[in-house]
Protein backbone atom coordinates (compact mmCIF):
# COMPACT_ATOMS: atom_id res chain seq x y z
CA UNK A 1 0.00 0.00 0.00
CA UNK A 2 0.97 3.58 -0.62
CA UNK A 3 1.31 6.33 2.03
CA UNK A 4 1.50 9.97 0.91
CA UNK A 5 2.66 13.02 2.87
CA UNK A 6 1.83 16.63 2.10
CA UNK A 7 3.02 20.12 3.00
CA UNK A 8 5.02 20.54 6.26
CA UNK A 9 4.72 16.81 6.99
CA UNK A 10 6.24 15.95 3.59
CA UNK A 11 9.21 18.15 4.48
CA UNK A 12 9.54 16.62 7.96
CA UNK A 13 9.43 13.11 6.47
CA UNK A 14 11.89 14.10 3.78
CA UNK A 15 9.77 12.32 1.17
CA UNK A 16 6.36 12.56 -0.40
CA UNK A 17 5.53 8.88 -0.57
CA UNK A 18 6.43 5.50 0.96
CA UNK A 19 5.36 1.91 0.28
CA UNK A 20 4.31 -0.30 3.19
CA UNK A 21 3.54 -3.99 2.88
CA UNK A 22 0.63 -4.83 5.15
CA UNK A 23 0.01 -8.47 6.04
CA UNK A 24 -3.58 -7.72 7.03
CA UNK A 25 -5.96 -4.77 7.21
CA UNK A 26 -5.27 -2.39 10.10
CA UNK A 27 -6.39 0.99 11.43
CA UNK A 28 -5.08 4.46 10.62
CA UNK A 29 -3.97 4.78 14.25
CA UNK A 30 -1.96 1.55 14.07
CA UNK A 31 -0.40 2.63 10.78
CA UNK A 32 0.71 5.87 12.46
CA UNK A 33 2.72 3.92 15.00
CA UNK A 34 4.43 1.95 12.19
CA UNK A 35 5.66 5.08 10.36
CA UNK A 36 8.87 6.68 11.59
CA UNK A 37 10.24 10.15 10.93
CA UNK A 38 13.93 10.56 10.04
CA UNK A 39 14.60 11.39 13.73
CA UNK A 40 13.15 8.01 14.79
CA UNK A 41 9.92 9.37 16.29
CA UNK A 42 6.73 7.68 15.15
CA UNK A 43 3.99 9.61 13.40
CA UNK A 44 1.79 8.61 16.29
CA UNK A 45 4.10 10.36 18.78
CA UNK A 46 4.22 13.48 16.61
CA UNK A 47 0.44 13.60 16.41
CA UNK A 48 0.25 14.06 20.18
CA UNK A 49 1.82 17.51 19.89
CA UNK A 50 0.72 18.63 16.44
CA UNK A 51 -2.43 18.13 14.47
CA UNK A 52 -2.09 15.51 11.72
CA UNK A 53 -5.04 14.71 9.48
CA UNK A 54 -5.54 11.48 7.55
CA UNK A 55 -7.27 10.33 4.39
CA UNK A 56 -7.90 6.78 3.21
CA UNK A 57 -8.58 6.40 -0.49
CA UNK A 58 -8.96 10.18 -0.68
CA UNK A 59 -11.64 10.50 2.02
CA UNK A 60 -10.92 12.27 5.33
CA UNK A 61 -10.99 9.79 8.21
CA UNK A 62 -10.11 9.48 11.90
CA UNK A 63 -7.65 7.10 13.61
CA UNK A 64 -10.23 4.31 13.91
CA UNK A 65 -10.75 4.03 10.14
CA UNK A 66 -9.65 0.79 8.49
CA UNK A 67 -6.80 0.58 6.01
CA UNK A 68 -6.77 -2.31 3.54
CA UNK A 69 -3.61 -3.88 2.08
CA UNK A 70 -4.24 -1.93 -1.14
CA UNK A 71 -5.39 1.44 0.27
CA UNK A 72 -3.92 4.83 -0.57
CA UNK A 73 -3.40 6.59 2.75
CA UNK A 74 -2.32 10.21 3.17
CA UNK A 75 -1.18 12.21 6.20
CA UNK A 76 -1.07 16.00 6.27
CA UNK A 77 -1.40 19.11 8.46
CA UNK A 78 -4.71 21.02 8.75
CA UNK A 79 -5.59 22.62 5.41
CA UNK A 80 -4.96 26.28 4.60
CA UNK A 81 -6.32 26.96 1.12
CA UNK A 82 -8.48 29.81 -0.19
Amino acid at each position, binding site marked *: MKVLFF*AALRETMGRSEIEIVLEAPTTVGALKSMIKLPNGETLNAVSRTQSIMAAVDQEMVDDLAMVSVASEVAFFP*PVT*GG
Partner: protein
Amino acid sequence: MYRSILIQVEDFSLDAALAELKMQSGLAGGLCFFTGAVRNSNLDEAVGGLYLEHYPGMTERQLDQIVDEAARRWTLHGAMVVHRIGHLKPGDNIVLVAVSASHRGEAFDACEMIMDYLKTNATFWKKESIPDGYRWVEARSSDEAKATAWDA
Protein backbone atom coordinates in the same frame (compact mmCIF):
# COMPACT_ATOMS: atom_id res chain seq x y z
CA MET B 1 -27.10 23.05 -13.01
CA TYR B 2 -23.82 24.09 -14.57
CA ARG B 3 -20.62 23.42 -12.63
CA SER B 4 -16.94 23.89 -13.29
CA ILE B 5 -14.15 23.02 -10.87
CA LEU B 6 -10.58 23.81 -11.81
CA ILE B 7 -7.26 23.60 -9.99
CA GLN B 8 -4.60 25.27 -12.07
CA VAL B 9 -1.27 27.11 -12.10
CA GLU B 10 -2.53 29.73 -14.56
CA ASP B 11 -4.32 32.93 -13.58
CA PHE B 12 -8.06 33.29 -14.25
CA SER B 13 -10.09 36.13 -15.69
CA LEU B 14 -13.17 37.45 -13.91
CA ASP B 15 -14.60 38.74 -17.19
CA ALA B 16 -14.24 35.32 -18.80
CA ALA B 17 -15.76 33.61 -15.74
CA LEU B 18 -18.73 36.00 -15.75
CA ALA B 19 -19.34 35.39 -19.47
CA GLU B 20 -19.07 31.62 -18.99
CA LEU B 21 -21.41 31.52 -16.02
CA LYS B 22 -24.00 33.68 -17.81
CA MET B 23 -23.85 31.61 -20.96
CA GLN B 24 -23.88 28.20 -19.26
CA SER B 25 -26.33 28.67 -16.43
CA GLY B 26 -29.29 30.33 -18.17
CA LEU B 27 -31.15 33.39 -17.04
CA ALA B 28 -29.95 33.80 -13.50
CA GLY B 29 -30.96 37.05 -11.78
CA GLY B 30 -28.18 36.96 -9.19
CA LEU B 31 -24.52 36.26 -9.83
CA CYS B 32 -22.12 36.42 -6.90
CA PHE B 33 -18.33 36.36 -7.31
CA PHE B 34 -15.68 36.05 -4.64
CA THR B 35 -11.97 36.38 -5.42
CA GLY B 36 -9.20 35.81 -2.90
CA ALA B 37 -5.80 37.37 -3.55
CA VAL B 38 -2.34 36.95 -2.01
CA ARG B 39 -1.77 39.38 0.88
CA ASN B 40 1.52 41.20 1.38
CA SER B 41 1.66 40.58 5.14
CA ASN B 42 0.57 37.97 7.68
CA LEU B 43 1.02 37.86 11.48
CA ASP B 44 2.84 41.23 11.33
CA GLU B 45 5.48 40.03 8.88
CA ALA B 46 5.99 40.99 5.26
CA VAL B 47 5.05 38.22 2.84
CA GLY B 48 7.01 38.14 -0.40
CA GLY B 49 5.04 35.33 -2.00
CA LEU B 50 3.21 32.06 -1.55
CA TYR B 51 3.64 28.48 -2.61
CA LEU B 52 0.41 26.47 -2.77
CA GLU B 53 0.10 22.70 -3.01
CA HIS B 54 -2.84 20.30 -3.11
CA TYR B 55 -3.66 16.58 -3.12
CA PRO B 56 -4.32 15.80 -6.79
CA GLY B 57 -7.56 13.86 -7.19
CA MET B 58 -8.78 14.27 -3.63
CA THR B 59 -8.99 18.06 -3.68
CA GLU B 60 -11.03 18.08 -6.91
CA ARG B 61 -13.45 15.57 -5.39
CA GLN B 62 -13.77 17.59 -2.19
CA LEU B 63 -14.60 20.76 -4.14
CA ASP B 64 -17.20 18.79 -6.06
CA GLN B 65 -18.75 17.60 -2.78
CA ILE B 66 -18.77 21.17 -1.42
CA VAL B 67 -20.65 22.36 -4.51
CA ASP B 68 -23.06 19.40 -4.07
CA GLU B 69 -23.77 20.58 -0.54
CA ALA B 70 -24.46 24.16 -1.72
CA ALA B 71 -26.75 22.84 -4.46
CA ARG B 72 -28.62 20.78 -1.86
CA ARG B 73 -29.27 23.88 0.26
CA TRP B 74 -30.11 26.43 -2.42
CA THR B 75 -31.52 26.38 -5.95
CA LEU B 76 -28.53 27.29 -8.06
CA HIS B 77 -28.17 27.76 -11.80
CA GLY B 78 -24.42 27.40 -11.82
CA ALA B 79 -21.29 27.25 -9.67
CA MET B 80 -17.66 27.70 -10.60
CA VAL B 81 -14.58 27.18 -8.43
CA VAL B 82 -11.06 27.97 -9.63
CA HIS B 83 -8.14 27.51 -7.24
CA ARG B 84 -4.56 28.24 -8.20
CA ILE B 85 -1.51 26.24 -7.09
CA GLY B 86 2.23 26.82 -7.38
CA HIS B 87 4.16 30.04 -6.79
CA LEU B 88 2.17 33.27 -6.40
CA LYS B 89 3.13 36.89 -5.65
CA PRO B 90 1.31 39.44 -3.44
CA GLY B 91 -1.71 40.72 -5.31
CA ASP B 92 -2.05 37.59 -7.46
CA ASN B 93 -5.44 35.89 -7.63
CA ILE B 94 -5.65 32.66 -5.59
CA VAL B 95 -9.26 31.56 -5.68
CA LEU B 96 -12.50 32.29 -7.47
CA VAL B 97 -15.94 31.15 -6.35
CA ALA B 98 -18.79 32.22 -8.64
CA VAL B 99 -22.42 31.27 -8.16
CA SER B 100 -25.56 32.07 -10.12
CA ALA B 101 -29.11 31.76 -8.83
CA SER B 102 -32.52 33.26 -9.53
CA HIS B 103 -32.09 35.90 -6.83
CA ARG B 104 -29.22 37.51 -4.94
CA GLY B 105 -29.89 35.95 -1.51
CA GLU B 106 -29.19 32.42 -2.68
CA ALA B 107 -26.17 33.52 -4.70
CA PHE B 108 -24.59 35.39 -1.75
CA ASP B 109 -25.23 32.55 0.72
CA ALA B 110 -24.05 29.74 -1.56
CA CYS B 111 -20.90 31.67 -2.54
CA GLU B 112 -20.02 32.28 1.12
CA MET B 113 -20.72 28.68 2.18
CA ILE B 114 -18.60 27.25 -0.64
CA MET B 115 -15.75 29.57 0.33
CA ASP B 116 -16.04 28.78 4.08
CA TYR B 117 -16.05 25.02 3.42
CA LEU B 118 -13.17 25.32 0.97
CA LYS B 119 -11.02 27.08 3.60
CA THR B 120 -11.48 24.32 6.19
CA ASN B 121 -12.17 21.12 4.22
CA ALA B 122 -10.31 21.18 0.91
CA THR B 123 -6.76 19.79 0.86
CA PHE B 124 -4.70 22.85 -0.06
CA TRP B 125 -1.66 24.08 1.88
CA LYS B 126 0.11 27.46 1.75
CA LYS B 127 3.74 28.16 2.45
CA GLU B 128 4.71 31.79 2.65
CA SER B 129 7.99 33.51 2.03
CA ILE B 130 8.91 35.90 4.89
CA PRO B 131 12.08 37.96 5.60
CA ASP B 132 13.62 35.05 7.63
CA GLY B 133 12.86 32.35 5.06
CA TYR B 134 9.70 30.30 4.71
CA ARG B 135 6.87 29.11 6.94
CA TRP B 136 3.81 26.92 6.41
CA VAL B 137 0.63 28.84 7.12
CA GLU B 138 -1.29 27.47 10.13
CA ALA B 139 -5.01 26.82 10.10
CA ARG B 140 -7.07 29.43 11.96
CA SER B 141 -9.80 28.58 14.44
CA SER B 142 -11.87 31.55 13.19
CA ASP B 143 -12.11 29.84 9.77
CA GLU B 144 -13.24 26.63 11.45
CA ALA B 145 -15.89 28.57 13.39
CA LYS B 146 -17.22 30.18 10.19
CA ALA B 147 -17.53 26.81 8.46
CA THR B 148 -19.22 25.07 11.41
CA ALA B 149 -21.70 27.95 11.70
CA TRP B 150 -23.32 26.64 8.48
CA ASP B 151 -24.14 23.37 10.26
CA ALA B 152 -25.99 25.05 13.10
